[in-house]
């Protein structure tokens, strides 16, 4: 398995048993327009994520706000139902391999044995098709600690009722037994019996987050999703909460999915790390290795943008240009390429990229565009109000990286410019070293992160 490029359906961390495995999860929200509520497009919040969460470890999920990491967490927690894709619970290594193998086959071509196996897997481990009891068991086993401890506790309930609620719902305890268990849980997170009969507004932010953690632990779950649990807290309190989480993990053998935008925290907490950009996972690997030697330009930029106390920053030149692309129509090829400092010809340039960059950099020229006749996303004829604008547009294209991706130079004909790009398939995440996965097509070719030449266009 090591050293080879992965199959189309990636599954990282297949070496260990998994509490949750995701296959090609997509969450698309329709964008409706006008009086008739016509669907004008889809916001691709999560767009094809494969992810395995190894048992007993911490997986860090990082990315900037709006990249879909919280949505992905909510999918796993069962709060958002995915548009497509499968969620599996509690798969052994063997079962994960079987799932991978069978997913890549057509169901009609299954052998009798495989058919039995598939049936067994889907009814036993797949969310949505497994039995109600199993589903309930999964819900018990998978708990969440939310980001905002102020809005995640009902202001009109006593701490006893908040923390004891999971026990009540699952009929684990009632009356005095419940009180006893609640006190136990509160003590476990560093609070005490005296806090039981108070309302959430009587606590500080850190204490509220402790209450939130106590609630998540009430049912003795195997897996806890931590959705930015410390980003709303002071730095000193952050450290306390993080240490508490580490302690609890050691005591109870918990598996964490740690969702955050804070790389310092994730480095401290997680064994493995998945970096997300625009609804997709762009890099996956052991935390130390990803930090020492990132294999995706985006991971490297994220790492370097984290300010350090020493004040030193390596490679100041690695920076993202422009703004986050529209998730309704994400870029072709690698989704990062319009902003990537090391983007090359094969990264998936298309007509939209050139137009977007013109709009951003030279709005005066952009405004003289009269029509864009596109044959497809890669071929189009852009018409301008006058020949002068067309000319400067063509020059601009020629001087950009996108020029390298044109299969012939831009055709300047009076007031119009014809563009024809080489069509590039969408980037997929592949394993390029043992346990290291990246979706950067250049890294995949070179086997290492491409170098950055400062004087490049």
């Amino acid at each position: 398995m090591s050293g080879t490029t992965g199959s189309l359906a990636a599954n990282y961390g297949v070496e260990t048993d998994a509490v949750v495995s995701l296959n090609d999860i997509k969450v698309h929200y329709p964008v409706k327009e006008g009086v008739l509520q016509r669907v004008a497009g889809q916001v691709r919040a999560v767009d094809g994520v494969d992810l395995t969460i190894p048992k007993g470890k911490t997986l860090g999920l990082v990315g900037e706000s709006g990249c879909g990491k919280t949505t992905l967490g909510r999918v796993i927690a069962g709060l958002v139902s995915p548009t497509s894709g499968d969620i599996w619970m509690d798969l052994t290594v063997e079962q994960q391999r079987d799932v991978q193998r069978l997913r890549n086959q057509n169901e009609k071509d299954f052998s009798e044995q495989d058919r039995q196996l598939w049936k067994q897997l889907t009814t036993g481990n797949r969310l949505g098709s497994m039995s109600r009891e199993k589903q309930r068991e999964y819900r018990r086993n998978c708990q969440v600690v939310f980001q905002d401890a102020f809005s995640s506790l009902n202001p009109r309930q006593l701490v006893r009722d908040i923390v004891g609620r999971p026990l009540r719902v699952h009929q684990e305890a009632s009356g005095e037994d419940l009180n006893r268990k609640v006190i136990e849980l509160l003590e476990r997170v560093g609070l005490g019996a005296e806090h039981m009969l108070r309302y959430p507004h009587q606590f500080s932010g850190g204490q509220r987050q402790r209450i939130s953690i106590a609630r998540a632990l009430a049912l003795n779950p195997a897996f806890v999703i931590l959705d930015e649990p410390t980003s709303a807290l002071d730095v000193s309190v952050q450290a306390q909460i993080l240490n508490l989480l580490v302690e609890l993990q050691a005591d109870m053998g918990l598996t964490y999915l740690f969702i955050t935008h804070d790389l310092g925290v994730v480095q401290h907490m997680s064994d493995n790390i998945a970096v997300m950009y625009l609804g997709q996972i762009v890099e996956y690997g052991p935390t130390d290795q990803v930090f020492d030697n990132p294999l995706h330009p985006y991971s490297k930029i994220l790492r370097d943008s984290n300010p350090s106390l020493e004040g030193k920053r390596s490679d100041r030149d690695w920076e993202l240009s422009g703004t986050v692309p529209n998730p309704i129509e994400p870029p072709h090829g690698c989704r990062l390429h319009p902003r990537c400092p090391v983007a090359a010809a094969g990264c998936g340039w298309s007509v939209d990229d050139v137009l977007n960059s013109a709009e951003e950099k030279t709005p005066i020229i952009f405004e003289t565009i009269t029509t864009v006749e596109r044959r497809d996303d890669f071929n189009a004829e852009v018409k301008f109000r006058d020949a002068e604008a067309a000319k400067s547009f063509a020059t601009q294209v020629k001087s950009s990286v996108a020029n390298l991706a044109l299969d012939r130079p831009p055709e300047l004909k009076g007031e119009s410019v014809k563009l024809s790009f080489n069509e590039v398939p969408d980037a997929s995440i592949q394993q390029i070293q043992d346990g290291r996965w990246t979706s950067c097509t250049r890294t995949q070719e070179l086997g290492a992160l491409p170098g950055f030449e400062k004087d490049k266009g």
Partner: protein
Amino acid sequence: MSSVSKQNKKSQQEKSRTTALSVKWARRREVALEVLRNPLTVIGLVIIFLFLMMAAFAPLLVEPNQPDPYQSPRDWSNIDAAPGVAGHILGTDSTGGDVLYGIIWGSRLSLQLSLTVVLFTLIFGTIVGSIAAMRGGKLDNLLMRIVDVFLSIPELIFALAIAAVLGPDFSNIILALAAVFWVKYARIIRGEIIRVKQADYVAAAKVVGDSQWNIYRKDVLPNAATPLIVQATLDMGNVVLIGATLSFIGLAQAGLTEWGALVSNGQSGLLAGEWWVSTFAGLAIVLWALAFNLVGDGLRDVLDPKTEGR
């Protein structure tokens, strides 16, 4: 030994149970005290209390008229008597009916009107609005379009139309007002629930696996209800005013002692200088409405989430 400790434990448990209850009551008392700290609210509460007492003990205050206590006794020898004349403290109307008797016995009907209408609309509006907000989708759309239809007709004209169709009867006025008022509550609670549903504590309850009904009961409704309560106190007055308008126009049973009807009867005498009938009955309506407005204002200040939990 162990039985002793068990006993001990039991008494301790007993204690913690009672403390949990008392904490809830303590909080309620806190809110109540906060309300009472506002003198205007206290005035409102006192007025409401006095009105209710007046309605409850009407037979002790004034001898009921026979056979129908809801018809003023006629003193045909003192028609349109000014206040103070011949034992009529607040005067008489054009049929010799005692105004004070009308106001005291009329309070029974008027207060009954406002309490019934508000209670019914509050419950019905909450049910419809909650179903719309909790279910969402097409049902929400359908219910809200129905609400829109109701809202698009002016309150008074709609109530008038319904009362006119049903015929002049007191219970029909209640029905007409209820039909008009519930939509407001449905709108308010729907908006509030949609807001509250976004909160993380609702998501947390879902993750825990609680049922939708429990989430509604424990998380959604308690956090969405404040504006409803405030609206209800304000409507207590509104209902009497609109009810009065309906009986003023003559949609109540003839001769019924009801505040609105009294104002209506007195208006013909106003130009002739017989001001007392409309004025005193009108004053009663204004006081009742004002009292609830004062209480509503006070409640809003205390229940406002921004000032809550200091």
